[in-house]
């Protein structure tokens, strides 16, 4: 306790003196990024934030918006929930995502499907190729078992408890934390069903670019993968950048790639036909 801040004016001056502080993990307002694709008008930038190791972030993104995630130092782990922002009872369904697309692994061209037969987001670019649809977020229990603690208030936060805080800020609760996908940390399935984690660390700067195909809420938690075998709680910052973009056209290659996907896009078109 400092006696120098014993009155409100001193406390105010102390607080205001923090203005302009820059740290590694923080949002940039208004958003600014010097590495946008050449085709993107900087005026279309809507979100620029670096999410701390162990941190989380949420964002509402309009249909057509591109979301670029960068694993800045090679050890980020982006557990992600996705909701229809206009009706959050509609949310990502990982079972339908793998079943409808007849494949377990996410990558460029893959869709993130809702439980209402619609595509919430699609993956337009991916140079990471290590992602996971099966194991879900780390939890208080899994972090306590591996690191001795997993509390939000502690040193080793877990992804599910980050999700709980993230969804709560959109008026959602425990029932809304649905099975998630995890980007940048992957799993491979062996013939006997065994799950082999792929946790790196990987080269710095790998990225995934997604396109919102509906108005969505994304919740990102950046905590070690639940099957990360390392004894130490290991994770590095995750950067999120988003910009406005066109919605998928009728001849969009992701829309037309498969008959199942084309019908998911048709269902989105139908949802917005009112």
């Amino acid at each position: 306790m400092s006696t120098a801040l014993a009155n409100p004016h001193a406390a105010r001056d102390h607080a205001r003196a923090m203005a302009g502080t820059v740290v590694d993990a923080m949002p940039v307002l208004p958003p600014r990024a010097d590495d946008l694709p050449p085709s993107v008008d900087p005026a279309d930038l809507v979100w620029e934030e670096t999410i701390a190791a162990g941190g989380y972030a949420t964002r509402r993104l309009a249909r057509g918006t591109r979301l670029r995630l960068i694993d800045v130092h090679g050890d980020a782990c982006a557990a992600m929930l996705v909701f229809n922002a206009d009706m959050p009872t509609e949310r990502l369904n990982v079972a339908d995502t793998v079943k409808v697309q007849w494949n377990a692994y996410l990558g460029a061209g893959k869709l993130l499907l809702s439980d209402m037969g619609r595509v919430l987001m699609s993956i337009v670019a991916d140079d990471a190729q290590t992602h996971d649809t099966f194991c879900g977020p780390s939890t208080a229990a899994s972090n306590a078992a591996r690191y001795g603690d997993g509390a939000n208030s502690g040193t080793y936060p877990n992804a599910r408890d980050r999700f709980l805080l993230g969804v709560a800020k959109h008026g959602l609760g425990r029932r809304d934390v649905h099975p998630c996908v995890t980007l940048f940390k992957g799993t491979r399935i062996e013939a006997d069903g065994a799950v082999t984690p792929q946790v790196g660390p990987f080269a710095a700067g790998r990225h995934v670019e997604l396109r919102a195909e509906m108005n969505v809420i994304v919740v990102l938690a950046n905590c070690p993968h639940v099957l990360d075998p390392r004894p130490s709680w290991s994770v590095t910052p995750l950067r999120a950048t988003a910009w406005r973009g066109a919605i998928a056209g009728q001849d969009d290659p992701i829309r037309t790639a498969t008959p199942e996907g084309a019908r998911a896009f048709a269902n989105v078109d139908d949802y917005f036909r009112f």
Partner: protein
Amino acid sequence: MSVDPHLSGLPGRIVHDVVVPARAPWLHHVDAGQTLRIVDLEGNQAVDFLLYAAADDAERYSAQDTIAAQGNLFLRQGTVLRSNEGRAMMTITASAIAYHDTIGGACSCESNTLRYGHHTKAQHACVENFLEANLLEGRGKRDIVSNINFFMNVPVEPDGALGIVDGMSAPGLTVDLRAEMDVIVVVSNCPQINNPCNGFDPTPVRMIVAA
């Protein structure tokens, strides 16, 4: 006196015994320590299955926590079915087939439009059963999560290819589950007729609870 083969080996007295008709939902509270036996009466019938903690139904079966905890996709004898809080809800104490699925999810009217076409939109589906049963106790769409499919076979190939293929079950085969906490079991006796999960012919299943 004839012996009912479906009761063979069940511990304790029978406290509930019902045949769930083809295509129908079923909801039942199973107390900690009780054993639920599911009998695939006519063979190759997928039984879509969700669990909620009776004391707090925001705690529910989590396919992802179950897979992560055992490091394997398949549910076998000995598998502990875990909740979203990481706790043991039920244990598979016996299974007449090698493994069961928990990655394939439940069929829905909406996903059927993607998988088969919009001509299937009006067909009955497991999510309809899950909703109808859960609505009886105040749960709704937010409570439908990735489920178990007993007697259903979803292999994953080295390139990630997966799909519902011919089942491994046969008439009279069973799976036994011991409740590790007081649970609410919600079942959809799968009505799907567009893939092999029910042999293209949904049939009844029998649910037996022993205390």
